[in-house]
């Protein structure tokens, strides 16, 4: 069998880290080849090397048995290599056509010739059943369509080798199904695909072979059909991992948080993003709100914590109506909040670790006296949390948080919020983008909090996490709670149907 791409013994170093260490990847003509690894395993680096964004220190790249040097994306493009990036690379106020031709423009006497391009895009769109309007503005089309524009970009450039970087992260299950169909169609038309992912079930569903990376090193390449999920997972993580999380059944007690008929209208778009949401979280339980990104979860939490005003409804914490309180007052009345975006909301990256660890309580008498800081107490506090939550960094309390790894940044936030010892802990996607070790650590912390009698409200997009951690599950779809489930009695499939809006029930 002929290889269309061979990346042999690639080594790519960044200051202080070997992102790729002697990695080999061979792509066969007409196959879907999965590239599996955790965050930070070196997948993106490897693909960036193939795409000409980085130059490897060692190793060679062969395209159709010919050794090549890829200096920039243009070279990759000329060799027929195209990539759908995880974060779409689209200009929001350009039309679909303008986005596709950018960098590959046809001109006549210096003027752009968009008509031919538009025609070609229509043809391609029909051939691969992509259903994209060439004249639509990017900001007006759905995420799924935007991804298909990315695919069209590659097809327009006659790419034969297509790289998909975590393509399903932003899609609904229906859109994922659709995408898989498209990928199969592409392969059947003779294209070859590299699929970058860390989701095993996707690999199982669609890939032919799979190459596994771990911490920058090449681990193995296997036939997907004859390899079990467990084996794949073990190769990815480097040890046996339990898919389940150990925990005892919940012993829920009195209600801590009560959300009553909350609605939120988005200020800019004037859309209703949260509709009449009601639920309760009890002491000693983990309530999870599951759903696909962008169905109102973020806004709901912002509404509860005060970052966004409610249009309607009430938030009651320990029988006290806190709806009208300020963010600070809400937080002080007993809410710990691990925010969705740790770098945007959770941390001040320019501050030292110790200064970040007092972000929520710098104003208390523990840390200040008449407005002047008690620096010794701040240091003690930091050292205590660093030890208790195993926060690793270069210079301890004085490390600049920007220089810390994502996992340790997240541990700092988790530590800070748990240490405040509030009755309600809100955790929004607390494990996003972390490696397995950090994920396990944070899961344990959440369960421990529950067992110590805290009410935990978890927002998660990952179904594994939802099934493993929750004591009760709510599914949110288009701003509404469309169902409540017992994790013991439901399946990921059932949740998926509700998450995608194809089924909905009355809230119990």
């Amino acid at each position: 069998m002929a290889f269309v791409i061979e990346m042999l013994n690639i080594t790519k170093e960044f200051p202080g880290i070997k992102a790729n260490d002697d990695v080999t990847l061979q792509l066969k003509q007409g196959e879907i080849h999965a590239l599996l690894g955790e965050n930070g395993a070196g997948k993106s680096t490897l693909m960036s090397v193939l795409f000409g964004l980085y130059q490897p220190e060692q190793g060679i790249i062969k395209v159709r048995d010919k050794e090549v040097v890829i200096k920039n994306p243009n070279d990759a493009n000329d060799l027929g290599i195209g990539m759908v990036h995880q974060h779409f690379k689209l200009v929001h106020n350009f039309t679909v056509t303008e986005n596709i031709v950018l960098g590959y423009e046809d001109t006549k006497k210096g003027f752009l010739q968009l008509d031919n391009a538009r025609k070609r895009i229509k043809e391609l769109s029909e051939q691969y059943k992509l259903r994209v309007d060439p004249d639509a503005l990017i900001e007006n089309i759905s995420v799924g369509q935007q991804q298909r524009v990315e695919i069209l970009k590659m097809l327009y450039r006659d790419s034969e080798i297509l790289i998909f970087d975590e393509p399903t992260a932003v899609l609904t299950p229906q859109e994922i199904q659709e995408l898989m169909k498209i990928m199969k169609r592409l392969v059947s038309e003779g294209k070859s695909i590299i699929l970058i992912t860390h989701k095993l079930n996707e690999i199982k569903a669609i890939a032919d072979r799979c190459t596994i990376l771990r911490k920058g090193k090449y681990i193995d390449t296997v036939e997907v059909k004859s390899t079990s999920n467990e084996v794949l997972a073990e190769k990815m993580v480097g040890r046996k991992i339990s898919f389940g999380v150990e925990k005892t059944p919940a012993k829920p007690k009195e209600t801590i948080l009560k959300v009553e008929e909350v609605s939120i209208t988005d200020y800019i778009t004037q859309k209703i993003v949260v509709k009449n949401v009601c639920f309760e979280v009890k002491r000693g339980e983990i309530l999870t709100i599951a759903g696909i990104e962008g169905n109102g979860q973020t806004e709901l939490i912002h509404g509860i914590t005060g970052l966004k005003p409610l249009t309607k409804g009430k938030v009651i914490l320990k029988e006290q109506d806190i709806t009208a309180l300020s963010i600070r007052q809400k937080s002080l009345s007993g809410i710990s909040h691990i925010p969705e975006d740790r770098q945007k909301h959770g941390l001040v990256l320019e501050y030292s670790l110790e200064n970040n660890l007092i972000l929520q309580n710098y104003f208390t008498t523990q840390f200040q006296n008449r407005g002047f800081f008690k620096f010794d107490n701040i240091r003690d506090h930091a050292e205590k949390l660093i030890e208790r939550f195993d926060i690793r960094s270069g210079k301890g309390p004085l490390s600049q948080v920007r220089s810390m790894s994502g996992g340790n940044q997240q541990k700092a936030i988790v530590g800070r919020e748990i240490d405040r010892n509030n009755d309600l802990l809100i955790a929004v996607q607390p494990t996003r983008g972390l490696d397995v070790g950090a994920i396990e650590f944070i899961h344990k912390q959440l369960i421990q909090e529950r067992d110590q009698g805290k009410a935990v409200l978890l927002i998660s997009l990952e179904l594994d996490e939802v099934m493993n951690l929750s004591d009760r599950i709510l599914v949110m779809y288009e701003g509404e709670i469309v169902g409540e489930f017992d994790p013991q009695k439901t399946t990921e499939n059932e949740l998926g149907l509700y998450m995608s809006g194809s089924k909905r029930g009355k809230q119990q």
Partner: protein
Amino acid sequence: MRELIDLIYFLFPLFIATTVPLSIVALGGLFSERSGVVNIALEGIMIMGGFIGIIAMRALIENTELNLQIIAFIGLFTGATFGMLYALAHAFASITMKSNQIISATALNMFAPAMSVFIARTFWNTSNLNLMGNYTISKVPILGDIPIVGQLFFTNAYLSTYIGIIIFIVATAVLYKTRLGLRIRSCGENPHAADSLGVNIYRVRYIGVLISGALAGMGGVIFVLSFATRFSGSVAGFGFLALAVLIFGQWHPKKIIFAALFFATMRVIADTYSVIPGLNMIVMPREIYRMLPYIATLVVLSFASKRSRAPRAVGEPYDPSKR
């Protein structure tokens, strides 16, 4: 009636003389900012371009017998060239060195007046460089004979007016109809998208800044030609006014022209209101008219910036590793 027509004939050239450099410089700023580089150095570039353009013209007047229009043309060309060279310093700092674009531009704004006064005082012992001659075209053949329009547009007109109109048309066409324009706009909105498609962000941004330098440099010469008979190391805040025009015009060529027309109206009123019937009845200090464009820009900013049309990536150095 006769008086009104005379008044219009009196005001119109002033009006054009203000509008043309404002819009040319603002269009220059447009290219820089649409490519993603903030350019508050327009003032400094105008001074540098104007200064060297005037030096060139003085040398030509002294040493040659060339027609004044040709000299003016060479002056404009020289101003554009040196404006471009000067803008290169801003491009280097803000694109290659990824520096803070405001700081780099501030340096350019300080350097140009200092350098021009320094050179003028060193070589000519004065900070005011006089420029001899009348650079208006007394009458364009044929077109100048058209009633009213001919008198307004084609008699006692400046060469720069026609150049300005050409620049507007070319600039709009380049920005919206050519490959370069598409790339410039993409770099200002989403450089990562452009980069992933093989567009060389750095090159495109250099081009954007250099175009702005050329236009601002030319604008500096036009400013001196139309307003002053001498150059004294200043363009009286015109560069910053052009920046206001750019913002007031929401980074769009046509709207920029309207913004320039509006600003020019205010300025002409400020300078002439005492002779305008009607306006001279309302006693309002000329400073009020002078500051109106800036206030208007502030008002527009405070009501538009939630949905501002400013290029999304403007002001951010391109860093390929940030996605």
